[in-house]
């Protein structure tokens, strides 16, 4: 193959890629706008400072988990263990901080390290041993959950007061949880400028081609799980800030919710396409849908059903429009 041909092919691929991403984004952002408008209509208190703080505080963990999941999925993998990585990182950080304000920094490092270590386990099993990501992370989810129970057998312990109180304050007029979501977006934007993430796209898009272009496929795959794990560690700090206490059972919903957020955000599950900003929007959509159903007075018996249907509809809309773009 000549270099010129290669370049042209790459160019065509890039154009197609941008088109798909944009169409997926339009759907994601329209959904987000729709759900925000509906929420504001049904909840008179939606724009009060308390409501904004509390709404954002609730979905901070999911937002970080969604960014983590996005990186793995873009790299062609899947991480079902994100939820228990969050749980394990949170209880380790809780133990490390031991309720002391002075140790909050150390707590962050502990959470990041725990998350990254869990990610490394996943990464080695998936990339080096070459096992199916779905099965591997399903199994490691139980392993991490089990370790969590060993570290913290029953709920308890107190988060440093500065952390749980700080999480509820406003900083420069903007609630801290909103800053956290912005930070998640900033982390993604910073990462997306790196060669690492370009390689993740390449591996997720076509691992063989990436390998042929001298991308260190094994290392990139493994590293994508490590970075995702570290981000799950940040999600864990969000959980701690939100709850103010430790709970080994926290985060059970996070793994599947993060996958739903990723798909809502227009990221193709077969990898190589999309961006985590969409996943963040997806996470917010998921959280607000539950909110809207509550304020619409949907009876509790039907709310889960309704929530599932709305999410399926949103997913279908987002996936079908992407598929159409691909066919074209």
């Amino acid at each position, binding site marked *: 193959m000549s270099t010129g041909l290669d370049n042209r092919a790459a160019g065509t691929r890039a154009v197609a890629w941008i088109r798909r991403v944009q169409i997926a984004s339009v759907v994601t952002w329209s959904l987000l706008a729709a759900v925000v408008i509906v929420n504001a209509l049904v909840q008179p208190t939606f724009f009060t400072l*308390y409501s904004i703080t509390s709404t954002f505080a609730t979905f901070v963990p999911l937002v970080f988990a969604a960014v983590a999941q996005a990186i793995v999925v873009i790299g062609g993998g899947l991480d079902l263990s994100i939820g228990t990585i969050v749980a394990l990182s949170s209880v380790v950080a809780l133990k490390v901080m031991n309720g002391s304000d002075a140790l909050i920094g150390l707590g962050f490092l502990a959470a990041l390290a725990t998350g990254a270590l869990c990610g490394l386990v996943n990464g080695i099993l998936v990339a080096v041993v070459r096992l199916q990501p779905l099965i591997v992370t399903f199994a490691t989810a139980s392993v991490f959950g089990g370790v969590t129970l060993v570290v913290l057998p029953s709920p308890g312990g107190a988060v440093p007061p500065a952390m749980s109180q700080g999480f509820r304050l406003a900083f420069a007029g903007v609630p801290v949880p909103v800053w956290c979501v912005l930070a998640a977006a900033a982390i993604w934007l910073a990462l997306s400028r790196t060669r690492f993430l370009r390689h993740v796209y390449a591996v997720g898009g076509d691992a063989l081609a990436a390998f042929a272009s001298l991308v260190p496929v094994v290392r990139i795959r493994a590293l994508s799980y490590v970075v995702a794990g570290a981000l799950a560690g940040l999600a864990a700090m969000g959980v701690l800030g939100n709850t103010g206490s430790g709970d080994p059972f926290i985060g059970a919903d996070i793994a599947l919710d993060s996958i739903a957020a990723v798909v809502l955000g227009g990221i193709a599950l077969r990898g190589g396409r999309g961006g985590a900003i969409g996943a963040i929007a997806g996470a917010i959509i998921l959280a607000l849908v539950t909110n809207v159903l509550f304020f619409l007075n949907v009876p509790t018996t039907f709310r889960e059903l309704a929530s599932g249907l709305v999410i399926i509809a949103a997913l279908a809309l987002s996936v079908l429009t992407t598929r159409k773009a691909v066919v074209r």
Partner: protein
Amino acid sequence: MRFRTGAALAAISVALLAGCSSTAPTGGGGGGGETEGAGGGSEGPFTIGVSNGFVGSEYRTQMIEDIQTVFDEYKENGTLDELVLENADTDVNGQIQQVRNLINRGVDAIIINPNSGTALDAVFQEALGQGIRIYAIDQAVETEEVVNVGIDQPLWAETSAQWLAEQVGEGGRIVVVNGIEGHPANEARWNAAKAVFDEAGVEVLAVANGDWDQATGQQVMSDLLATYTDIQGVWTQDGMAQGVLRAVEAANRTGDIIVTGEARNGYMRMWSELKEGGFESIGVVNPPGTGATALHFAVSQLEGRELDESKTENGDIVLDLEDPITNDNFDEVWAEVQDRPDSYVLDSVLTRDEVNAYFVG
């Protein structure tokens, strides 16, 4: 390049950390609290919120129905206007969202069956900061300002453990089928029961978890029966005792294995049939109606009445246990409830007058 990735990550984490902690010294409670909820002693009608993080068990279903029944009475006379139910299977993070939804809805009091004794403290503070009263049922929480309304879980466990210890005697050999490992109610119960068995010299051969689920309880008990052939008794909790009994029955051991049961109709129906064959059991009532009882307390306090400190335990309401059901009084109790479906959990809700006794004046 990879160094830059790391640096970017680190820098942003530090920025995040700095943002979170640098605002802290200004003190808690400054972020929210725009809308003041109705405090104590104002006039109604009031709105009540209910948060429940676990659905699908007969206990929780009946708990909600009891609350609804008492609410309807109050609605009729205009004391309450709305009951907002947050009732879904969720974890602590989800239950925090439930409570926040209730806060944003402007409820005056929240009745909660908490998923955790500690992890809801921060969101309770948010609610309390807006003048919302909170009542925790079924399981106690550690937040001081929250009024816990419920039975004494350790005493509940001790009652059946004591009875079983007497039946099997010193040196008796039993197995245990517990609820969910790490769950606060399970820990409180098992610690109390274990102390009783240690004291009485009863040998606990194995402890397994039945997840408060009949099918799981049955499976776990079958395994235990296969492993330990010479057991004389089983100590188990409500929600899975019928499953345990089914396993004992399937092994044809109801004549020589004593099972601590549950005060639920399905179990009692089996008990009534097996009783003739010499089967002995005990059922201690854990009433789902505590939620409805808590509603009476909420209404009284919203109307501005004060709890009589001498009748509370550090501000909490500990409800008396009813006499346990044993072979001695079985027929009497069974006659009252046998027409109800098997899913019925033996229940009691305090009346308005009984609740009044807890208040000053």
